[in-house]
């Protein structure tokens, strides 16, 4: 029987930033859904501070892959929705200050009263991060937060997320398909072998000192070594997965239609100006 994830033994220390790298379809989103409580494991348990997780909750803040902002609410209202839930005993002023603090943290002061449809992709993701952080969660879970963005925005947002994280040093789990991103942001990288029956590969500890400069880090020899090691491992695993299947497919016989062949049917008239 095929399982999505098998034999996952993951332990995350408090204050640690762990990155999980893997191919698409290797069960990364399933793993994060197990941790944030939206799915339940068939076997085994998920523990937060020794207590098993029963369901989703604001103590595990999630940054979704497709942002999941409510499109009929403005940026301020989206974050206020989260703050209202978690800090229901605060006064209105306090809540307002709290929301504004996080909007400021992600540099979106100029867009406080805009709706998500009026924002760019990078801005929407920043709102999503601000919402997750405003809940003051124990663990910050990020499910491929930057994969829907272009490569140029990704770099600047990576820096921002690291900056924000380093203020509170929350426990964070990042799912990504970009090895560079994982190395830049995390303390530990765990690759996931591709599914089905995906398991975790050997973990790589990242000894690069913080704060890490995104541009200068490319010249760091340790960075290059880590990058090579992880990529080699992933490519090897990917290649072996391809070799595993030895089915042969019978392809249909197709002949191309060469230009100049005689066609049946009427020749189309040229486009005339339409008056009606």
């Amino acid at each position: 029987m095929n399982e999505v994830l098998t034999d996952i033994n993951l332990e995350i220390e408090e204050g640690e930033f762990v990155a999980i790298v893997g191919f698409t379809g290797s069960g990364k989103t399933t793993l994060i859904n197990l941790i944030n409580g939206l799915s339940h494991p068939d076997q085994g348990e998920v523990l937060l501070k020794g207590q098993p997780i029963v369901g989703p909750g604001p103590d595990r803040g999630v940054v979704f892959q497709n942002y999941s902002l409510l499109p009929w609410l403005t940026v301020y209202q989206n974050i206020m929705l989260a703050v209202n839930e978690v800090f229901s005993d605060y006064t209105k002023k306090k809540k307002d200050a709290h929301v504004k603090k996080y909007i400021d943290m992600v540099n979106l002061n100029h867009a406080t009263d805009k709706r998500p449809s009026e924002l760019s992709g990078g801005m929407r993701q920043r709102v999503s991060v601000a919402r997750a952080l405003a809940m003051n969660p124990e663990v910050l879970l990020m499910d491929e937060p930057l994969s829907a963005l272009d490569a140029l925005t990704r770099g600047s947002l990576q820096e921002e997320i690291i900056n924000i994280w380093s203020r509170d040093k929350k426990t964070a789990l990042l799912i990504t398909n970009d090895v560079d991103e994982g190395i830049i942001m995390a303390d530990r990288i765990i690759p996931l072998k591709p599914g089905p029956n995906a398991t975790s590969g050997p973990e790589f500890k990242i000894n690069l000192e913080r704060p890490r400069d995104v541009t200068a880090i490319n010249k760091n020899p340790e960075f290059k070594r880590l990058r090579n090691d992880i990529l080699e491992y992933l490519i090897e695993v990917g290649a072996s997965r391809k070799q595993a299947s030895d089915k042969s497919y019978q392809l249909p016989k197709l002949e191309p239609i060469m230009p100049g062949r005689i066609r049946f049917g009427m020749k189309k008239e040229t486009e005339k100006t339409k008056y009606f």
Partner: protein
Amino acid sequence: MKDKLIKTMRFIGLGFSEPLIRLCAGEDTQKNLTDTFKRMIFPIFSILLFLAFWEGGSSYLYNTEAQRKIEKERTDRGDEAALEMENCIASGEISCQPNTLPSPTQVYGAYQALLRDHQMISQKKDDFLSKTVEINAKRKAKGESPITYTGRPSFVDQIGTSIKTVFAGFLLAALIAIPIGIIMGLSPTLRSSFNWLIQIFKPVSPVVWLLLVFMIVKTLITNPDLDKSFIISFISVGLCSMWATLVNTSMGVSTVDKDFINVSKVLKLNIGQNIFKVILPASFPLIFTGLRITLSVAWMVLIAIELLAQSPGLGSFVWEEFQNGANDSNAKIIVAMFVIGGIGFLLERLMLLIQKLVTFNKADLA
């Protein structure tokens, strides 16, 4: 200034006047001239064409009917009587006019007659009010209800009654269908268990609903002061038209994007907040579509229901004119037809306007 005008025009639904406004502002004359022709002049042209067609058709029918009458006289009573009949018809005397599809001029004449009739009746009502103001004050002091005008309602009054009934029915339909739709959308078990009820009652004809409601209201309401026909009408209209909203609401609620449900789960919203803050706004477009269909269906079934419930509205007006068979009855019925169509069109536009005001841009969901 010009852009703002164009934007307002588009918003209220008169977007076809945009080329004309641009033309008056002197912008790109060639293109805007052709556009004005396409969007304004041609539709007016088509209306004139329709009127010409109607005039031609009605005069053809008139002549055929006249010939038939003359021939009938000829076969019944001989040539002399036929000649008399011909003169009678030509002279325009009311007693021997052919009774067929009226021409546009006749319809217009009937429309003016109805307006005059309305003014006359309003005048009568005002006189009545001024005459009974003292008596009613005394009755009020004693605790009795005031004497009201009980004369024949005019055409415009009947339009008013129809509009009141349709809005009352629409509100009833919305109040019943939306909560039930939300409950059914949220729970798949309820949905499958009550689906049969919806499927069976949805295609039931308005006439049958009217009889059902009549049976129930007749036994329940015994107070003679209440206007029973109005109550029966609006309840029937509501019950007939609520099914569209019900089905659309339940579908909208059950197909809310999974992402939003995940957000609400992670934030641990309680059930009330979940419904009002996440599910309802997300399913609002579908609910509104259901409401629009409900309003147009309500207006359509209203005429039939009013006819049968004897409520003093457009439906009973049409029926009475038909029964009357007076000379200008057909013309009055055609006036009523245009009024019904026109009001239906305006109601639809009103809903569109409200929808534009309230909806958010769903084009790109974030």
